[in-house]
């Protein structure tokens, strides 16, 4: 299990190759990539603030919950902080499992809880810039895992 928070750009090809390589036990690997959209040219960049120490710990806590819930083989989360340009990667989540259902569920669970519980805050740089507002839909997405059984 690998959890990293970094200011350097995330190279998803390299991350994916390193994660999936030589893994004879995995039948399914999911890679989810969250990217900085250009918002039709309106956005110059995102500034991602985080709470050092807590961000890593909280992602590891979420990952631990997922590992307790689904039979997965491995997972990795890489999250960017600092200034991120349109087209660049904000977050990259990878999950390896014997079968696809567990991989899909775990990746969804990780993303839904990262959105609501990992201490990161996005601010837009540009003419209409400002702090990005949290979405009610993200709270709903995270809550639905409480009502379902794996």
């Amino acid at each position, binding site marked *: 299990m690998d959890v990293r928070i970094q200011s350097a750009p995330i190279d998803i090809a390299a991350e994916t190759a390193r994660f999936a390589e030589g893994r004879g036990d995995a039948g399914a690997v999911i890679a989810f990539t969250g990217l900085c959209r250009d918002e039709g040219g309106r956005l110059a960049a995102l500034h991602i603030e985080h*709470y050092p120490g807590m961000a890593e*710990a*909280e992602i590891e806590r979420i990952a631990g919950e997922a590992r307790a819930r689904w039979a997965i083989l491995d997972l990795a989360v890489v999250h960017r902080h600092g200034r991120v340009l349109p087209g660049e990667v904000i977050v990259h989540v990878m999950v390896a499992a014997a079968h696809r259902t567990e991989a899909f569920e775990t990746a969804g669970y990780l*993303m839904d809880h990262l959105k609501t519980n*990992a*201490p990161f805050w996005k*601010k837009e740089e540009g003419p209409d810039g400002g702090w990005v507002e949290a979405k009610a839909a993200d709270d709903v997405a995270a809550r639905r895992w409480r009502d379902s059984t794996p």
Partner: protein
Amino acid sequence: MKLVYFAWVRERIGLAEEDIDLPDSVDTVSALIGWLATRDEAYAHAFERPEVIRAALDKHHAPHDASLAGVTEVALFPPMTGG
């Protein structure tokens, strides 16, 4: 007590962190937010809607009714927007 602020809470207060001696009556997250809001206009602005403020005690999420007893670091911040 060490207090840390993030995002627009940090910007409105004008500080990323500070050390404060709290009165004994300020013994929960909720009481802390209410007490900070009375300090000056900047704090009042940061905490004008207490219900949207999230808190972490020693880097663990905590509800507003959580006790501050034994806590070293309190973080106050808006809803998170990572991922």
